[in-house]
């Protein structure tokens, strides 16, 4: 179909071809959108279950409009016995701190790994990469030991620092920096800029999509992370939202209806952030013109 799309430039009288191109475009749009709409199902399920009684969540066949429709789940979540609002604000603080730390640290680290030549760089890179390959569950106990030695357990710093020094996003940002043309930075160096200036004046403004991606993932992961806060934070009032939601349970099993109600409340900011961030992806197209 690709060949169909371009012919319009070649033939001056390409009205028929561009019509064909348009049909293909429409067909592909429809296919992608149809599959895209399937993605809402879990979301719909979540929303519907949030208004159900717990025993009706797994009802078969699935009922879209709850019967009976109850608000109790939301009422209970927001009642005093749970620190729901506290968890929410804790998580926001955590996410803001982690993002700040990451923007400060990940950027320069990735810059050094991508652009600066120093001995041992590639070896170091590979050692960093190795730690991504070990299942994180097998690191839980050792990590707990380190954190408790540093007296960081039961504080949100344990989570913030663990996250900040994960290599994944350094790797991502490094790969992005590699696509920025060398000539740009080399010229600056010849003009007498030092690497700090190059990084802050040239690289950072050019890598907006990369930084935005990093911020988005930090936000999403941290917002949904269960294991780390669950293991490393003990006090209920210091806990994070994802763990809080999972505590809606009895000793015999999960209270899915309440968890879904909690998830509904929790997901809103994530979707909001994504919609907000979206426009930067489009903006990126216009700014990248200067680089060619």
């Amino acid at each position: 179909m690709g060949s169909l799309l371009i012919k319009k430039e070649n033939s001056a009288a390409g009205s028929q071809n561009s019509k064909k191109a348009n049909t293909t475009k429409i067909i592909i749009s429809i296919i992608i959108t149809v599959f895209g709409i399937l993605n809402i199902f879990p979301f719909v399920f979540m929303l519907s279950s949030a208004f159900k009684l717990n025993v009706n969540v797994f009802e078969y066949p699935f009922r879209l409009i709850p019967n009976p429709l109850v608000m109790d789940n939301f009422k209970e979540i927001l009642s005093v016995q749970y620190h729901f609002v506290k968890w929410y604000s804790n998580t926001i603080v955590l996410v803001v701190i982690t993002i700040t730390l990451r923007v400060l640290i990940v950027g320069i680290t990735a810059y050094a790994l991508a652009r600066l030549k120093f001995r041992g760089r590639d070896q170091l890179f590979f050692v960093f990469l190795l730690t991504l390959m070990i299942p994180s569950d097998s690191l839980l106990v050792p990590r707990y030991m380190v954190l408790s030695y540093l007296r960081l357990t039961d504080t949100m710093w344990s989570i913030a620092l663990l996250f900040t020094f994960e290599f994944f996003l350094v790797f991502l940002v490094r790969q992005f920096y590699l696509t920025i043309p060398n000539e740009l930075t080399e010229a600056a160096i010849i003009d007498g800029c030092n690497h700090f200036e190059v990084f802050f004046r040239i690289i950072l403004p050019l890598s907006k999509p990369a930084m935005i991606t990093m911020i988005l993932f930090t936000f999403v992961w941290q917002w949904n992370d269960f294991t780390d806060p669950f293991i490393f934070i003990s006090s209920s009032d210091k806990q994070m939202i994802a763990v809080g939601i999972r505590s809606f349970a009895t000793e015999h099993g999960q209270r899915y209806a309440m968890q879904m109600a909690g998830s509904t409340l929790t997901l809103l900011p994530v979707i909001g952030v994504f919609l907000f961030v979206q426009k930067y992806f489009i903006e990126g197209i216009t700014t990248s013109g200067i680089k060619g």
Partner: protein
Amino acid sequence: MKKARKILCLVVACLMALSLLAACGKTTVSEEKQASTQKADDKSSTQKEADTAKPSGPVKLKFTFPKPVDNPAMKEYIKYAKEKLNYDIEFVDINPVAQEYDKKLSISMMAGDAPADVFYYYAAILDKYIAADTVLPLNDIAQKANVNLQTKYGTGLTVKDNKVYGLPQTRDIWVTLYNKKIFDDAGVPYPTAEGWTWSKYIETAKKLTNPSKGIYGSFMNLDWDSFQYMTAHQKGIPDYKADGTSNFDDPAFIEALKFAHDLAGKEKIQPSILTLKSKQLPWDSFGTGKYAMTVNGGWSTCFVMDKKTYPRDWKYGVLPMPYPDGSKPASSMVIGGLAVAKGTKNAEAAFKLAELFASDSFKFDTERMPTRLDMSKDEINSYITTNFIKGHEDDGVTVEDYIKCWFNPEITLTPEKVNGPGASVINSTFISEGELYGIGKKSAEDAMKNVKQKADTAIAEEKKANK
């Protein structure tokens, strides 16, 4: 080249310094811990000194239990303990779900940082905590506190190598719950506790099963470990042979496995394991009112206690657990209890708290029966009639009904789960092999052969490790 070497040296030095730092940290921390437990163990006046040296208010203790924060019984109990012991007790909320609770507790305890001084344990799991050297033995402290654990709790205690590690807090005897409305609708008379055998259960369930209405006669979580060997345990078949190897080549275990899955496959009185899995039927499906009977631990009476979570227009009845034809009445039982973490700074106080909970907490809980063995019949009766039955009277369930289930000396109590060397591997193998048999991917004989083999390997391994 030189520079490269320098850098390498620097990296290695950094690494070593770091590990040294951490190693030092480790030893100092564990020394501290040892010192503190020794202090607590010490029978002399050091403890008193420590107590008098701390004029600032009552002893502070942390306590954790797999129950939700809003559990009313837990709140009342803590209030009661605070008044009685005059300690400052904090409830640490981990997660009520067993698997999560265990994960967090074991990880932090292994790392030497117990989240609470006193913690609840599930019977099959305390073994792991003991082996990981994170639980305090209670013999000496009990003696000092003048509590005779043997006469008070007897077989309920968790003992290893003659040391008591856990005090029983819950003693759960299995029951049959039934939905009176489904019986009425089908015109079937309510069953009685006398001669309540499995064949009677099946016969009754068949009369009640009505696929056109979506009603099954029975609901059991056939994907749970205990159901794979339920009837073998009820018949009193041991899990281990005299030589320490597993006994799963006994034909009774093949029978038990077949029996459980025949309920769905042959008798068609309940959803099969395939349906349970595929439709994700939750353990509390009985609460939907679409199942006439369910057999489960005594704790499942929470269905009927909690009318907010399980709103219903039907009444329930209770019977003992059905027992295999041709053997004596028998019911599964499981014990959960309280243990003291080794890292506690206040072992004596922690023991007192655990002991008080083990002996008195049933007063605040309406799903459970007391674990104490030194109670007189009158005490038990007055407990049931004044406390326990209150939540059940609406349904027309009587004190006698529960006495027949839980206080009947004629019922032999058999362990709900395999509990001994290699138990976690064994139970998990039963789940996976049982499932394969249940969905028809394996014969019962092959499944049990595999269980036996894996069990023996795990037992041998554990023996070797304990040497």
